[in-house]
């Protein structure tokens, strides 16, 4: 494997694996609470962080982390308080974040739109030593939260109202989910890019759902798919000289299509097995209640 002889490829592959693990690990909770596009929004906001990083000559990765965490917290607050106008406020936050990024990077002495493109769509060859350190630390945080608090996050994402009555700190857990998603966005930023990061949070989870019945299995399969496509995409982009982010995302979607095609006949067979194992289980729902006359059925 000559690919491993280059230091920049070693860094790229390490970053790719970490992205493959963390993006679906957070994404599953976002999909579960039906906020699949939240990652996309955070990605837009993170652009302001990248721009600020260039402008102030700080690390764009850490600056993006800071800004996207603030943005995610703001989104969560908007969700609490701005029920009716919430979506408009979120739209302004997203596009403001994007515009801010373009503006700051053009004001920066070292910045150019070429720099910006590498953050928007990912660029493996530019992953630096310090980027890798940051990515490792951030990924460790994400794994710790998504695995260590899986039962709490599952409960809150499944049914927020119920979770409140189990005494869980619902608001704190919602904030933690938002912050973890923001951190994941910056972990993935160098590899797949800010505009494509959300795909890696959502599509592996959607693909895993085709095969699984339980949350635990969905989690495991989604992470496996995530690692497979990020590694596969990185290697492909090295040999074929194609952009890594786009390659990874297209591979993920291919995995989804493939698993869906495989799983559909499987699900049909399973449904038939269930139906034959429980004869007469369903017809009770169609039985007309004995206390009602035929006339009552008309109005229902």
């Amino acid at each position, binding site marked *: 494997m000559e690919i491993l002889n280059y230091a920049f490829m070693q860094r790229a592959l390490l970053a790719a694996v970490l992205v493959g693990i963390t993006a679906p690990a957070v994404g599953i909770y976002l*999909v579960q609470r039906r906020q699949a596009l939240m990652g996309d929004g955070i990605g837009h906001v993170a652009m302001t962080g990248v721009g600020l990083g260039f402008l102030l000559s700080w690390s764009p990765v850490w600056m993006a982390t800071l800004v996207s965490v603030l943005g995610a917290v703001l989104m969560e607050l908007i969700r609490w308080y701005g029920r*009716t106008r919430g979506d408009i406020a979120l739209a302004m936050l997203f596009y403001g974040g994007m515009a801010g990024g373009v503006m700051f990077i053009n004001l920066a002495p070292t910045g150019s739109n070429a720099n910006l493109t590498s953050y928007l769509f990912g660029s493996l060859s530019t992953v630096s030593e310090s980027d890798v350190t940051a990515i490792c630390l951030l990924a460790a945080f994400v794994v710790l939260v998504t695995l260590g608090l899986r039962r709490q996050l599952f409960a809150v994402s499944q049914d927020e*109202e*119920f979770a409140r009555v189990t*005494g869980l700190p619902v608001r704190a857990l919602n904030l933690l989910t938002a912050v973890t998603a923001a951190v994941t966005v910056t972990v993935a930023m160098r590899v797949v890019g800010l505009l494509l990061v959300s795909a890696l949070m959502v599509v592996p*989870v959607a693909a895993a759902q085709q095969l699984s019945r339980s949350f635990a299995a969905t989690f495991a399969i989604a992470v496996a798919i995530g690692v497979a496509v990020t590694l596969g995409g990185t290697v492909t982009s090295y040999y074929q000289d194609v952009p890594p982010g786009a390659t990874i995302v297209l591979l993920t979607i291919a995995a989804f299509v493939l698993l869906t095609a495989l799983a559909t006949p499987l699900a049909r067979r399973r*449904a038939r097995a269930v139906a034959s194992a429980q004869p007469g289980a369903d017809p*009770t729902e169609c039985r007309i209640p004995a206390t009602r006359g035929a006339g009552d059925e008309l109005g229902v």
Partner: protein
Amino acid sequence: MTESVIALRGVRAELGSRPVLRGIDLTVRRGEVVALLGANGSGKSTAVRSIIGQVPVAAGEIELFGTPRRRFRDWARVGYVPQRTTAAGGVPATVTEVVSSGRLSRARFGMLRKADHAAVRRALELVGMADRARDSVNALSGGQHQRVLIARALATEPELLIMDEPMAGVDLASQEVLAETLREQVAAGTTVLLVLHELGPLEPLIDRAVVLRDGCVLHDGPPPEAVGQHALPGHDHVHPHAPAGAEPIRTGLLS
């Protein structure tokens, strides 16, 4: 007098700027089964959701087990069944996974021990869903979803059960299972507050009915009699205490 498990005094609540509760008094004593009745929009769901802290209260006091709700932390004593048509989320989950989240109130740091898993199994047996424990909730019928939601509330082995329309969208077979489950809980001394659209098969269990209308308590006493034609779903119940000329209290399915 027996200890009050739930106490609401002059509770007011608003959704947006619309007043939904306009000074509700409600007491549920230990061991009682109280039904909260009323038409759509009468505030019965909001009343229950204010008790659990999901809806902010504009004025008045709420106490749970004698503790002001703001300072109440002993949630393991409360089982809650929210108004839902499904137990599923955006990601597949098994019946056991969903019901286990009800046990978190008793688990320390989210770690489920042997006793917790046993409690989850018992809760599933109580609602007759033990054989579906490993199935995905997506594969269940409407009635079975409701049974899972109730098992989730029972997993904490609560002293107080709060249920918001547990019979909505439930097939007859499941209705009977749920009524039987509730009967066992009541026999074991559980206090129950139920939001209902109609009394239905739970009627024999209910000690007291509180009827809400436009955010006010209209009736608090024995459950309104419903016999013969009146017991049919879809019947508009005209309450004897209602002021003359008032609209009938619509507790039926068709209102």
